[in-house]
């Protein structure tokens, strides 16, 4: 059932066996998407925000296809111009570490860098 379906109570407090969010599988999928989509791309201030939103929606749709049931997904994308500036991204979660997980993929060339974080959160 979809995470939004709050009409029926199924008393499931854990995912079924074998139905956990597989971070390594998601990581490989997202990395392949970035490598192919951004191949030869260069940073453009005018289209940067559009690119980040397109990537975000695209990654979320693809991950949703391979995601187990009852998992909510949060997908974040950072696209930046590569000018040798210092940058640090950190993330922390308050969740159930047994069932929730995340995957990270990064792409970089001489002109831009892109970071994608996908969090999979089990919904009771």
């Amino acid at each position, binding site marked *: 059932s979809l995470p939004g379906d709050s009409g029926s109570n199924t008393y499931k407090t854990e995912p079924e066996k074998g139905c956990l969010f597989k971070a390594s599988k998601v990581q490989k999928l997202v990395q392949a998407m970035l490598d192919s989509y951004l191949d030869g791309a260069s940073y453009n201030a005018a289209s940067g925000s559009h690119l980040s*939103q397109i990537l975000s929606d695209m990654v979320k749709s693809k991950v949703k296809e391979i995601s187990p049931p009852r998992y909510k997904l949060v997908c974040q994308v950072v696209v930046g*111009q590569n000018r040798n500036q210092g940058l640090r991204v950190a993330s922390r979660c308050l969740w159930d570490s047994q069932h929730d997980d995340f995957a990270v993929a990064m792409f970089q060339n001489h002109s831009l860098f892109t970071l994608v974080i996908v969090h999979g959160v089990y919904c009771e």
Partner: protein
Amino acid sequence: MDEFQLSEETAFVVDDITTIIKDVSICTTIGSSAYQQNRINQWTSSVVETSLSQLSKLGKPFKYIVTCIILQKNGAGLHTASSCFWDNTMDRSCMVRWENKTTYCIVCVFGLAV
């Protein structure tokens, strides 16, 4: 079918969370300090951990994801975006942008109802 009422106690209040992140987490961690490469690891960890502990003190029935980006100001462009597959009625997110003379700090908070 039961009707779920969104009350103060169980809602994700964007304004409250924005204030907490800005005043408690970012200002006390970075404040007016200049950007320093050897300090940003500590800054990002501190902002994220302080934010999360403040959020958990609210005692609301949410799982939280907090992401912090600290960026040196040197004229480079940066864009962020997010997409979520969640429950539109109860799950919320908020983004806080902060800056001083040498540093940008962007914090994203996602609250997923339990």
